[in-house]
């Protein structure tokens, strides 16, 4: 699943969460969220990704292709310690 918006920010966090809730309904047990198109993530956007994880059964939401600015937010908040994060989508799919 790919996040298409370049900004995952406070203005878009609610819509992103709603969209993801729908998108993962009846989803397979493992979902990879491709964040390669997102070049700006703020604390609200991060909260939306954490919330989205709770929509996936067993919390099996994994992340791929974090841009440097997005990776920084995950690192500084230590949320990179609770998500499986892949450098790119092919490696995520290979698992």
């Amino acid at each position, binding site marked *: 699943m790919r996040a298409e918006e370049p900004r995952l920010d406070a203005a878009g966090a609610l819509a992103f969460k709603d969209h993801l809730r729908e998108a993962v309904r009846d989803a397979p047990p493992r979902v990879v969220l491709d964040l390669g198109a997102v070049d700006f993530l*703020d604390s609200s956007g991060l909260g939306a990704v954490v919330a989205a994880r709770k929509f996936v059964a067993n919390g099996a939401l994994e992340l791929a292709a974090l841009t440097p600015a997005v990776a920084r937010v995950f690192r*500084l908040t230590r949320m990179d310690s609770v998500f499986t994060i892949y450098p790119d989508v092919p490696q995520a799919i290979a698992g």
Partner: protein
Amino acid sequence: MPRERVRFRADLHAVRDALIQLERGAVLGPLTGESRSVILLVLAEVMNNIAEHAYRGEGGEGSVCLWRKDGAVMARIVDRGLPAPAIPAATDTPNPADLPEGGFGMPLIRVLVRELAQSRRCGCNVMQLCVDDDNAA
């Protein structure tokens, strides 16, 4: 030295628009992408706080003034909302294991700024902060 001032309506979409304007502006435009993304993240957290808390989502107006000083970006952010809480010098991030959905904003601001001063003057919250270009965060 370039200096730039942007006024913004205190709602989240207007904050986004103001940040995009600043990103392309005279102060932040010439920076490296990495330096620019750090100051934009700090400004986003501060400005969203103004929209959501100082004005309680009921609208209002704020302003951001940016300028360069000694390898850093200086920012002064002003609003006329409710008195802003002090951002503690040491602010822990929420425990990741709890899967928190909020509470990241103030710790992010703290870890990314070199200096931060807050005051209340003439009914305004005034925040002045400094983010180094070579911030290693």
